[in-house]
């Protein structure tokens, strides 16, 4: 209590530095997160099945082929991170979809909350993991101050664009059908399928 303010000020900046950095990095290792990540993702998958009692048969008429891009699921990924990033993208989009306009669906509120929480968790882990890996990569490369140019490393892959178009189709479908219950059911099944295929591919890759 009797510390001089000057001393406090001197120590403050290093303390801030340390504090802020610790907060930023969050000190959770990617390998460690993988355990939780796999658990959470399979949980979410189960949730996606459980949240609806059964697929209403009358909605079969409105079913639409969204054409999930198959090349993402190939096992011959040159970079292992590709499929992880694809999974991150899918998670982000699923999170966006389930956060909007869900009031028209006939699902229970608690299930909706659970899926939102679950997807948020999944996102959080994936983000941390990918950020960490990127930080390792960027230690070697120079950080760009102005984001005006794309560096050679930062070339977006075409497969992510295909995935985007896929989710865009899902989005448009929901909008067209005005977020009806049938539309939500179809979308739920589709997203569950997408997650399942991605998870399976990731598991197969991990074994290699």
């Amino acid at each position, binding site marked *: 209590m009797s510390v001089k303010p000057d001393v406090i000020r001197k120590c*403050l900046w290093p303390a801030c530095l340390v504090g802020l950095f610790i907060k930023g990095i969050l000190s959770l290792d990617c390998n460690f997160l993988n355990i939780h990540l796999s658990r959470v993702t399979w949980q979410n998958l189960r949730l996606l099945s459980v949240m609806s009692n059964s697929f209403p048969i009358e909605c079969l008429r409105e079913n639409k082929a969204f054409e999930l891009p198959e090349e993402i699921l190939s096992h011959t990924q040159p970079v292992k991170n590709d499929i992880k990033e694809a999974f*991150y993208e899918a998670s982000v989009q699923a999170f966006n979809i389930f956060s909007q306009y869900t009031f028209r669906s006939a699902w229970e509120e608690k299930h909706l909350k659970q899926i939102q929480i679950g997807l948020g968790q999944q996102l959080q882990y994936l983000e941390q993991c990918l950020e960490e890996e990127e930080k390792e990569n960027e230690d070697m490369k120079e950080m760009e101050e102005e984001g005006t140019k794309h560096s050679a490393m930062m070339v977006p892959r075409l497969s992510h664009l295909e995935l985007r178009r896929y989710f865009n189709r899902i989005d448009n479908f929901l909008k067209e059908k005005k977020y009806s219950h049938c539309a939500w059911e179809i979308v739920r099944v589709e997203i569950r399928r997408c997650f399942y295929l991605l998870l399976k591919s990731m598991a197969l890759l991990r074994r290699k």
Partner: protein
Amino acid sequence: MAYSVSHPAYFHNVHNLLLRYLNHHLDGGLKLFTHKGRRSQLRGRRSGAHRARRPPDSLPGARAPPAQPPRKQALDASWFDSGHRRPSRQRSARRTRPAPGGASSFQPPSLPPPPPPLFPKPPGAAARAGEGDAELEAAPGATGNRKGGGPPEPRGLRTTSWQSLARRRGTEEAARRRSAAHAAGPTLARLPLSARRSPVAEDVTGRASGGPQMMLAVLGATTLMLVAGAPWVLPAAAEGTNLKSPQNVEVYIVDDSCILKWSESDEFVSNVTFSVDYQIPEIDDWIKLPGCQYVTSTQCDFSSLQLNVYDEVKLRVRAEKGNDTSPWYEVDSFIPFQKAQIGPPEVHLEAEDRAVILNISPPGTQDSVMWAMDSSSFTYSLVIWKNSSSGEKRTETVYPRDKIYKLSPETTYCLKVRARLHVQRKVGLYSPVSCINTTVENKLPPPENIQIDSNNWNYIIKWDYKYENMTFQAQWLYGYLKKFPGKHEDKWKQLPDCENVKTTQCVFPRSTFSRGIYFVRVQASNGNNTSLWSEEKRFDTEIQTIILPPLINLKSVNGSLRVYIGAPKESENKSVDQPYRLTYEINFWENTSDTKSKILQKKTDFTFLNLKPLTVYCVKARALILEEKWNKSSDFSDTVCEKTKPGNTSRTLLIAGICIALLILPAVVYVVRVLWRCINYVFFPSSKPPSAVDEYFSEHLLKNLLLSTSAEQIERCFVIENTNTVSAAEETNHAGEDYKKYGSQTSQDSGNYSNEDENSGSGLSEEVLLQGAV
């Protein structure tokens, strides 16, 4: 009216001159005939529309007798007039038309002085040829060239000839004419302008009577024309009549504003306007971009098109001046989303004493089309520094609504933020720098150093606080809400068990939170004043998870112990699912002894073998998670003891053994008896042999057999002499017995029956004996 070498009119002009030269030197046998025929054709067609014909009358003086000029003039004039009517239908030709007066001035009444040099071209001829060219090229000129740059002119003219001919009325005559020309003039038909040259060719070949001189001349003409035409293929360098397409064409997309920028190719040309077209995949045609037609600025905004940002789009731009147009410059097809640059986000700041509250709005507008699917996917990174002296910059990743802590009060801080999309590898532009002053230090500081622990049943939040006698309250928030921009101040909820607690800790049951990520914050108050909220502590139920100790079931089975490890049950009798792969550590010892053995294994069903019977063993276990870098263990379960059974198995064995023994014993006895009998029978017989055998054996044989010693046979021998002298007479009495008589010497000898030897001493005696015996 000067034409450059590469002008198409030049070629035609050369051709004309050559032909004129040839005609001049050849016999004109068929001249009149062909000329007449041509003229009749022309007359027939005069009423019809203009077409791309080269009336042979255009070769002035070639065939026309001097008597014809007025008519020819009329014809030519009409032809020219009809041609001149065309510009209203066609787009502006690339070249300006020659002056009307040119036509009439075109025709010199007579042949030029022989022989005219092939290359210099009289301007009149050129002009005449030129306008014909211009007509022909007018129609497809605008549409024939899709790519920018100087179009190859033969191609244009070729299309011109086919397309324009087809379009104009009376195409059949042209086709007829062309086919005739082709039949007649193979050498000249090779040239790209064969269609147009056909009348001329027809003339030439018609006129030719097949002389070798003619052929030579034709060949020479061909080569000359080819050579002359070569420079024609080069792009035209017009003197101010050709526009170049715009240069440095670039697409700039930032958020929703899509702009195409270019620069003029030639700054010296004024009054140039530009037009832009676009094309999308489903539609094959180019569509005019509204708002970018004939504009004078060198940029065009095409954001209003409502394109699908994930689909390809193509653009093209060209310059125009008056009636001239440059060729189109086509931009490579691109996907707007890929080219898009993330713009600067909007930042609102609010100051506290030791923290700054951030409120970041995502780049673009709220109903942005480009980032419609990304509104909550942006990750923001912030750079903050003190405005004063040292100004060390620090970078941090922040949420859209976040707080920056550990600042000093009453200081100016400046910061800038940029958004990123990780997967697309897009890094946005920085927002403009905004500065803020932190406020005066608050009387009550917020609680610090929040820690969250958990045990089997509860979560415990602990914090530090400087002052005493304060009441605290805690709030929590769903973690995923942080990803959404906008206010969620109202989404914080009270923790019911932590309202107005007096201690610097707070306990609430695990059931408050279902699985997920949450944020927790604490506030202190002392009645009148309340402090500001503490740092928001992130709290993950997964990481805080507690492994409950397992339930153990022991069963002793025949001298071994079987252990069943069961899932733990929560207090509500609901079984908890433990999705992690658990390893169990089982401690196992004899009740009396102290030594414990530990076993690690994953199976939940386990047997201890080879135990001592009738002893009490005890077991306790705990569950562990042995993943990389994460060791978590539960408490030990209750100790369960069990006594092993007294070797049930040995007793049964014994009983079995006895039974078997009982069964086997008589058999054994029987066998033993048989054997004994056998032995007795063999070695100790009880029966006697028969009497006769007995007699026989008893004295002699047995004795002899069993006890015989081969003693020497004792002979009944009579001792004949007692002295050495032998008397022959006394010996004859004993003839019955064939006993040999021995000499005295022989009786002393046992077994020596040889006579001769013994008879040496007593020869006489033996003879006597022998005589006596015989």
